[in-house]
């Protein structure tokens, strides 16, 4: 039986799995090339493919539809930019971008603890200012500027913590 197998598959196991040091060096250089390409691609995407964002005011909700203590998700200014509008229990409203400043996970409204919470790494942000309350996020959440026109709530811009437009 074994002889027949050897006849059918005449490749020596040890020879087949042997990787010379030179081959390993070649593989490491290839891996190095892959990593250099990957890092370069991220650099290109981060710096060159950055489209100019235009903040065109957008209607996001009606005041009469809001329930105190609840949140509403919306997108602004582009369809891929997730944001969250929170109707606070004291009657005020606040809106922030939903992308956690740590690794871009979407933050959620935590009504019990009155904060925005990122479930990925337990980051939390103040609903009043967007400041980091706990966890690894390095910056506060950018705030979405709101304008109330009659019964309508309009988003007009995105402001980072230090007042600069996002």
């Amino acid at each position, binding site marked *: 039986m074994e002889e027949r197998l050897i006849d059918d598959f005449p490749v020596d196991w040890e020879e087949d799995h042997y990787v010379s040091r030179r081959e390993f*060096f070649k593989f490491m250089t290839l891996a*190095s090339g892959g990593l250099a390409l990957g890092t370069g691609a991220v650099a290109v995407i*981060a710096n060159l493919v950055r489209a100019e964002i235009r903040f065109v005011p957008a209607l996001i909700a009606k005041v009469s539809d809001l329930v105190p203590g609840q949140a509403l998700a919306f997108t602004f200014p582009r369809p891929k930019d997730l944001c969250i509008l929170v109707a606070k229990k004291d009657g005020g409203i606040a809106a922030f971008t939903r992308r956690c400043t740590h690794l871009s996970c979407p933050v959620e409204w935590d009504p019990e603890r009155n904060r925005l919470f990122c479930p990925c790494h337990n980051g939390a942000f103040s609903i009043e200012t967007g400041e980091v309350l706990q966890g690894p996020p390095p910056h506060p959440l950018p705030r979405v500027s709101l304008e109330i026109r009659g019964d309508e709530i309009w988003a007009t811009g995105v402001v980072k913590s230090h007042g600069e437009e996002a």
Partner: protein
Amino acid sequence: MKSPRYYRHIQKSALFVALLLFCLVLVLLQLWLFVAVLENYLAGRRAMAIPAALASAAILAVNGWMLRGVYRVNREP
């Protein structure tokens, strides 16, 4: 008494292992750079992307140069 050829072989072998270990360290450094750039990009920070990409390309050049050297060392008698 061992021949000079034997000693040359031992020397080449040691050199090869040293280069291989150095290459490994450089690739790990590149991996760290890649992860750092990706994490910073996701956090909205772009400042380090280009310097890191240049550093990674420089490491690739060093690795390529070492690979060339390894082939040359092996070809010599």
